[in-house]
């Protein structure tokens, strides 16, 4: 038992563990909307875009959260607007805006080579470096996002399901989109240190997809995705310590494992479904029917 609880003796692990659970739940919550809007790639793209903002804010001497936040929020809005207004598709808009933003970050790094190591954590995650301050920021963003989802649950559901029609029913689509972009950008920024730019997409996509395979109810999907996000993060963090593997990678592998389980359950249910009783078809002539 002592061996099992050993990681929790370390402060850095406790902070990392709590941060990972919060990030898992947060990404699971926001990921439901991301997946159902057909924007699964946005997590990957936006995290890269925010990387550009993080680098720029470092050079300008701004607070990381402020600089990266503003950058990410603007990128999310731009993606939304470009995709809708110019009908070029969300995937193309994400591809253009986020790679351009990432390229800005890379250009700045290549100009100021002295701090490249600082950004390894942003790229690949460094949960062991999480401080109490980081945990508080993550908790704050999680709570604010949960409140947004709670207050705008009906509007977000309507927009996600039937965006065009929602506006005809009085839903302020543009305004809700801006709020969502803000929440998404904030979620990605606070997840960067725990998961890293490269693995955020998986944390946003896997929990909602797993729950989608288990339920046909939106509310169940939302709650399930939060729980699975938190669970995979907790398991991933714990195993990463025990197995001495990168935490972000282990969290994502846990999610992928649950996805395979859900897939197996679905196939099992399909195979167990009784075959339809069929009767041999007897040809009937039109004359018989008329009689």
């Amino acid at each position: 038992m002592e061996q099992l609880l050993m990681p929790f003796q370390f402060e850095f692990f406790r902070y990392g563990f709590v941060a990972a659970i919060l990030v898992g739940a947060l990404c699971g919550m926001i990921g439901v909307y991301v997946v159902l809007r057909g924007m699964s790639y946005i997590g990957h793209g936006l995290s890269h875009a925010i990387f550009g903002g993080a680098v720029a804010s470092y050079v300008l001497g701004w607070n990381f959260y402020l600089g990266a936040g503003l950058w990410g929020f603007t990128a999310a809005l731009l993606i939304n607007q470009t995709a809708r207004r110019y009908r070029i598709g969300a995937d193309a808009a994400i591809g253009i805006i986020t790679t351009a933003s990432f390229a800005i970050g890379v250009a700045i790094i290549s100009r100021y080579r002295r701090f490249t190591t600082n950004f390894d954590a942003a790229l690949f995650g460094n949960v062991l470096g999480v401080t109490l301050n980081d945990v508080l920021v993550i908790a704050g963003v999680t709570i604010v996002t949960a409140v947004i989802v709670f207050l705008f649950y009906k509007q977000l559901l309507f927009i996600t399901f039937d965006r065009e029609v929602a506006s005809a029913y009085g839903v302020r689509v543009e305004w809700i989109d801006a709020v969502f972009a803000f929440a998404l950008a904030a979620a990605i920024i606070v997840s960067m240190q725990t998961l890293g730019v490269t693995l955020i997409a998986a944390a946003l996509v896997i929990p909602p997809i797993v729950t989608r395979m288990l339920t046909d109810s939106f509310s169940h999907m939302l709650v399930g995705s939060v729980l699975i996000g938190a669970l995979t993060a907790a398991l991933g963090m714990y195993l990463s310590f025990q197995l001495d593997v990168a935490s972000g990678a282990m969290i994502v592998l846990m999610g992928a494992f649950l996805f395979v389980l859900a897939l197996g359950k679905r196939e099992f249910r399909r195979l167990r479904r009784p075959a339809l009783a069929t009767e041999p078809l007897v040809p009937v002539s039109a004359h018989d029917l008329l009689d």
Partner: protein
Amino acid sequence: MSEPIVELRDVTFAYGRSAVVEKVNLHLHPGQFAGLLGPSGSGKTTILKLILGMLKPQRGTVFVNGNDLQERPSHRVSYVPQLETIDWNFPVTVGQVVLMGRIRQMGLLPWATRADKDAAEEMMERLGIAEMRARHIRDLSGGQQQRAFLARALLAQPDLLVLDEPTAGVDIGTQENILRLLAKLNREGVTILMTTHDLNAAAAHIPWVICLNRRVIASGPPDEVFTPKILSATYKGNMVVFRHNDMLFVGEQPHDHSYRDLVPNPVAGDVIITPNGNLPPLAPEIEKLIQSDVASPINSEAKD
């Protein structure tokens, strides 16, 4: 006459450079059941979106309940989109879809109150889908799906119900059911504007039709509007109109078909209408051809 619910005054709208609708004038009064007809790209859906405030006209004004939509948006118009646009894999049940119609009346909390649930239940009962409330929308038939979206629209208690091709992609029996249901709702006081491609269904079920091809070509009861001249101007093709026992049938002018070789009429622009409403007697060779070629003879009622 009562004030129109909707009025379009010299409305022009263009996507890019070419106008989709141009100088359109039309009005719809409370209690009307109107069909918007025209070929693909004639501007039918654009007109609906202008009325719903989803699009803003480049020229002209859209009035809803007497108010300029630009100055005072109206949410008294409910919209039923084409079923083709729905994401059928979205995790949502029939009951949840219907409740969306009550979004303006619902409070801040994410869940529905007893009053919301009762209103949705009553609407689902009215449209005969109450037993399907817990089913996923994908698991319904085409007609039931249409009823679910109709229930959502009606739950918003609109002054006007706007439907974009509610009969597209459904079989003829379901189409009949949907149009009868709309006629029933109209008799109960709901004002309806819908688009359709099915001229015969429009002739049978919709009391007022508006023929559109960028501009309004004609509007009025199908009896008056469905003439080869108007239909040809609307669809840019040769149309034939048959009248039989107070029923109106619209068909395409056969192209290079044996019927045309056998019958001196109809030719493009002619109408076969007899004073007593019966079809003119057919030549025996045509009768024979029709019996062998067509599943349901066109003068079957006369036989009865």
